[in-house]
């Protein structure tokens, strides 16, 4: 019996293949590295991530047109490439800020870095998946790694609790996501986005209630990682409990991946249901922004506050999804880089304050930072300004793009609400600044940051400012991304 298995075009998945080799190789290398020098594994992982990043970037020029492989279940376009770079950048920075932290927490293990790479792999598949099955498997690969990473400090009560919460809610929601996929499959007979779109168009299923429900279930499934209301409940608890580098990681990368998958499914799969999903996302967007910002006001724990802030940011980014125009996609793409800079930076500061017996995540730990570490305080202010969306920072440019997109699409009320929310947000960001500048420091043990952390902070700090003053390069990349992505649509 002869079955011919056609060889798929593997050149498009070179970054993913490299990632798998890197992660597996890392585990092998880990065996030969003594326990007190696990940092070396981190360096290797970092080097590998940089290599994969360069390889991924090399595709950019060739991908003016999207290309598919694996019988159309995998697509590589600039949109996917852009987000892959976001993930790789975030992973690199996370590795940098983890090096010292893991030693302080005494959980320096090679598996940590391997899991992080596998997680990145899952996200890379997610943004390139053109088939719901592949996207689902990408989500699960990412999610399983993140669950473990969130509970990596396994002797810490809060940490394991965070992992359990994340895990249970994640698995629960993934059941709903699967039901959504099943519904789409039942209605259209396919899971491949292009075919789904074709069938919807052909059979005129745009108002099919099954599909509407399926759309909502998909949004719910991805909404958990996005941390949009009402699927955000896990976020504050997990952010607080997880190891801080992982908190930084999950506040950016899985969110970006889920957003990218959401955008791809909604724009390329069920775009004819646009009127329906716009209504739903409108409500979710309004609720998400408001809940995130208002709840953040009263938080005493900075990690928790940033968790709510990240919920609110998910709301702002939803504006771009809602707008469904080129500027919107450009805004989403730009915002995620900006968001990666400023959020990684803010969490990096929290890690910086980690010392013996002090987690550094209480707002009181920031007291008088301007006096003891003026430069650190200035950098934190840059991140806070950016998070609050004040020029000249990258956060402002990103928010401007998203708002402009929403205005262009006619969502005036939502933009007004978003602007109002931005004002509310100022209050809690200002609380940190106030603690740093207007309160006197308490005598605390000396800070001893690792070099990796300092490097990471400088990199993200410089980027936050640089792309605020000169956003052109990133903006034009984001514009190309959006252009090819939306071109495919029409």
């Amino acid at each position: 019996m002869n079955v011919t298995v056609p060889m798929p075009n593997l050149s498009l998945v070179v970054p993913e293949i490299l990632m798998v080799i890197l992660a597996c190789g890392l585990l092998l290398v880990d065996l030969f590295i003594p326990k007190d020098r696990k940092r070396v594994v981190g360096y290797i992982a970092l080097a590998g991530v940089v290599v994969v990043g360069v390889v991924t970037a090399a595709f950019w020029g060739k991908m003016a047109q999207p290309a598919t492989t694996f019988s159309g279940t995998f697509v590589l376009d600039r949109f996917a490439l852009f987000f892959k770079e976001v993930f790789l950048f975030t992973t690199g920075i996370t590795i940098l800020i983890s090096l010292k932290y893991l030693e302080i927490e005494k959980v320096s293990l090679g598996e940590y870095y391997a899991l992080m790479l596998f997680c990145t792999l899952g996200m890379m598949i997610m943004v390139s998946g053109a088939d719901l099955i592949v996207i689902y498997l990408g989500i699960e690969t990412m999610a399983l790694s993140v669950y473990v990473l969130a509970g990596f400090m396994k002797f810490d009560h809060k940490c394991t609790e965070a992992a359990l919460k994340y895990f249970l809610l994640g698995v629960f929601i993934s059941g709903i996501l699967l039901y959504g996929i099943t519904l789409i499959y039942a209605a259209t007979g396919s899971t491949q986005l292009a075919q789904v779109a074709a069938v919807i168009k052909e059979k005129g299923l745009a108002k099919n209630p099954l599909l509407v429900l399926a759309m909502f279930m998909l949004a719910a499934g991805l909404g958990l990682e996005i941390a949009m209301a009402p699927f955000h409940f896990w976020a504050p608890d997990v952010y607080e409990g997880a190891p801080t580098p992982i908190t930084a990681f999950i506040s950016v990368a899985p969110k970006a991946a889920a957003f990218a998958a959401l955008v791809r499914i909604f724009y390329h799969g069920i775009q004819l249901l646009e009127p329906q999903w716009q209504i739903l996302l409108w409500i979710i967007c309004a609720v998400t922004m408001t809940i995130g910002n208002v709840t953040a006001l009263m938080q005493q724990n900075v990690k928790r506050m940033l968790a709510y802030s990240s919920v609110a940011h998910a709301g702002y980014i939803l504006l771009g999804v809602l707008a469904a125009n080129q500027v919107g996609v450009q805004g989403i793409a730009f915002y995620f880089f900006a968001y990666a800079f400023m959020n990684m930076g803010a969490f990096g500061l929290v890690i910086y304050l980690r010392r013996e017996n002090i987690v550094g995540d209480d707002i009181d730990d920031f007291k008088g930072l301007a006096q003891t570490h003026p430069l650190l305080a200035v950098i934190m202010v840059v991140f806070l300004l950016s998070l609050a969306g004040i020029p000249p920072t990258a956060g402002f440019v990103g928010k401007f793009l998203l708002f402009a997109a929403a205005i262009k699409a006619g969502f005036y009320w939502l933009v007004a609400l978003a602007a109002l929310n931005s004002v509310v947000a100022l209050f809690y960001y200002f609380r940190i600044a106030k603690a740093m500048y207007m309160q006197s420091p308490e005598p605390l043990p000396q800070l001893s940051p690792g070099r990796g952390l300092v490097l990471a902070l400088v990199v993200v700090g410089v980027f936050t400012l640089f792309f605020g003053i000169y956003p052109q390069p990133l903006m034009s990349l984001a514009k190309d991304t959006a252009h090819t992505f939306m071109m495919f649509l029409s």
Partner: protein
Amino acid sequence: MMINAWDVVFFFLAGLILLSALGVVFIRHPVYSALSLLANLCVTAILYLSLMGAPFIAMVQIIVYAGAIMVFFLFVIMLMNLSKGEYQERAVPWRLLLGLGAAALFAFQIFILAGEWRGVLSPGAGGFGVKALSHFIFTRYILAFELVSVLIFVAALGAVALAKKKL
């Protein structure tokens, strides 16, 4: 309404599955609950085999789900050797009510769409063989297949990293 043999089989199996599912949720002791789930999965496998023409899935269901996952569950439950107080939950009626209410709301939502599901199952029509399925997996979904292997590896790696006692 004509009742044929397949209907009888379906309702019989469905009844069994339903009962065992209720068992999973409402039995106090986790071990018995797990056994109930085991039964549930096995009967589901029969459903796949008999009515839906999916023999391979039925096998996988028995081997992986029932054979591996459930054994794993039972193993961990017994390993912990929970005292009676641990698994004997105090009833929290409002939570049960809320759970029921939320779930009912959700079910209602899909239920009212029942009319949208078209098509019928024709048991005994043969269905797909393993060959067709494997061809499908190894051509069109080869990427997904490879990814699943990575996923299983990640799960094993993560489980070991979390569960081993020493660092």
